[in-house]
Structures are given as C-alpha cells and as structure tokens.
C-alpha cells in the first residue's frame, strides 16, 4: 500500500511533471490566467492522462512488444491518444452535456499536449504493472493540476500588482514559474521514514 502512496507522492510532488520535468508548459502558461479555467483544464487533463497511460500500456504490451516494433512507440502513442481523446469528447458530449460545458473546449487542446505523450512514453520506458502505470499517470495528472491551479492563483494576484513595464505580462509570469519550480525542487530532498 505504502508503495502506491509513495508512487503517487513521487509523481505529484517530487517529479512534478510541469515544474520538475518541464512538460506541458504550453497549457501551464496559456490556461493559467483564471483559476476557473485552470480548474477546468486540470480536470480534463487528469482524465485524459489517466486514460492515455492505460491505453498506451495496453498498446505497448499487446501490440508493440509482441511484434517487436517499440521504435514506433511515439507514432503509435500519438495516434491512440488522439483517437481516445476524440472518442471521449464525443461520449461526454452525448452523455454528460454539463461536463462537456466544463471540459469541452480544453479536450482538443490536450490531444497534442506534451505532458500526456511524455508521461505515456516515460511509463512505457520504465515498465511496470498496469496498476503502477495507471497510478503513475494519475499522480502526474495530480501534479499537473496542482501546479496549474497554484500558478493561476499567483497570476490572478499578479494581475493586480503594478509590474514594471519591461516585465509586464509573460516575462513576470516566467519569473514566477521559475520561482515556483525552484520551490518544487525542495521536494527532491523529501525523506519519508
């Protein structure tokens, strides 16, 4: 049990997908102006990332490995992720219009999100059981959500601050992101007895 907990913590905090691995920086900068939209994006990403790690595990173990074509991993993964995102979008739109209102506009964005592909590739390279992979994906998604919502909160405060003209807008955003990333480096020294 503690192994799974550690896996979750490790992926969410110590190896945070955005602030430590620097994956998925486009939504991190792009969809973090408002906490509301950041939460929507986080929910959508959590969903897709978990789903993507699961499908790509199956792809890896049932198709790529048996045929010995692991070198096509990136291509195959993109194909499957894109298709599953499209499919999910359709299902959600049909079955849960309310949820579609929340996630709808963010889902297509995630199709080409490097965090999703990156995590899928990482899990494939590291191997592990299906449950491990699933938790790895879910933990990464939690870490992504945490970073995104935190950063959106920071940016909402920064919008009210009088920033020198040179730094206004994206530059001060990157500085803040850098500081946040430095802070997350601190988790590397985390010791769990």
């Amino acid at each position, binding site marked *: 049990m503690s192994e799974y907990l550690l896996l979750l913590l490790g992926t969410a905090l110590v190896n945070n997908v955005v602030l430590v691995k620097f994956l998925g920086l486009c939504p991190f900068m792009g969809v973090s102006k408002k906490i509301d939209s950041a939460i929507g994006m986080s929910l959508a990403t959590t969903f897709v990332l978990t789903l993507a790690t699961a499908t790509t595990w199956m792809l890896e173990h049932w198709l790529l490995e048996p*045929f010995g*074509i692991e070198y*096509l991993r990136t291509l195959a993964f993109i*194909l499957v992720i894109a*298709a599953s995102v*499209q499919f999910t979008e*359709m299902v959600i*739109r049909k079955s849960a219009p309310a949820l579609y209102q929340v996630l709808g506009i963010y889902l297509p964005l995630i199709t080409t999100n490097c965090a999703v592909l990156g995590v899928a590739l990482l899990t494939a390279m590291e191997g592990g059981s299906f449950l491990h992979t699933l938790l790895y994906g879910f933990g990464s998604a939690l870490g992504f959500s945490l970073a995104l919502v935190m950063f959106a909160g920071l940016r909402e405060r920064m919008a009210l601050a*009088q920033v020198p003209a040179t730094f206004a807008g994206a530059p001060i955003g990157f500085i803040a992101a850098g500081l946040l990333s430095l802070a997350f480096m601190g988790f590397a020294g985390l010791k769990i007895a």
Partner: protein
Amino acid sequence: MIAVISLTALGVALGLGLGLAARFLRVEQDDGLASEIEAMLPGSQCGQCGFPGCGPAAAALASGNAPVTLCPPGGSALVRQLADKLGVEAVTSGMKESVPMLAVVEEELCIGCTKCFRVCPTDAIVGAPKQIHNVLREACTGCGKCVDVCPTMAVNMTPMPVTLQSWIWHKPAVAA
C-alpha cells in the same frame, strides 16, 4: 513490413471506430447560443454592425465570425455581457470608445416628410406630415438610419450631451 501493416491496421481501426462513434453519438447542433445572444442584443435591427439585423449578427457571434464589439448601440455594457457569454476577453480598447450619439432635427431644414420616423427602429422620432419632427432623447439609439433617408439633410448625429447626472469622475492616472 509488420510495422507498416500493424500501424495501418491500428489507424484504420481507430478511424473506423471514430467514424462510427461520430455517427452514433452525434448531437444535434443546437443554435440555442445564437438565440440567447439575439435576446441580449438591442433588437433594433439598425444594421450598424454590418449584418442585416440582430438575428444574423447573433448567429455570426455564436459561430465566432464577429467580434463582441460589433454593436455600437449596446455600448461597452453589451461588450462585457457578450464576452462573458462567449468566454472571450472583452477587448474594449479596439472599440472606438464610441460616445453615445443622438439624432437631432434641424428645424429650419425639416420639411415634415415623415420619412425619418418611418425608418426609426425605436419610434424615437415623433411628428406628423408637414410638421416639424422631433427626436425623443430617451428613445434614440443613435443608429443613424434617419440621417440616411432625410431628403433635406435636416437630421444630424450629435454626441449625447454630458449633464450633471451623467458626468462621472475620470479614471486616475496610474503611477509609474
């Protein structure tokens, strides 16, 4: 060879799946949004936005083919409402901060032809044949339709005068 076949098979399978899904899970494209937007617009069909009326303008807004700043009579209040509705940012700077305009009839030139009050979308012009017409200040939207039809150029648009009631403090200059 296996690689080509397997990936092609994968692609075809996924494509077929998605195609079928698109067919079975299709949702009727509702134009609820367009009608909601139309309800927000002033509805005076004045045509200042360049569309033939508020209905087509609403459809264009809903499909994202028109900026939220398209409606001068709605003013910045409408821009904000539309931006909230459509989830876009209200860029009021691009909008020429249009001062609300008001039609004024020049009494020396008016011949009482009644053309202007027949086109007025809000019945803001009162008058009778062969009588000088007048504009009701509260009802005029400043659409300018009357200016176009007036044969003697007796109708002019002037900025709405600032009164003690409508005057407000300007925004303070921001510190450097």
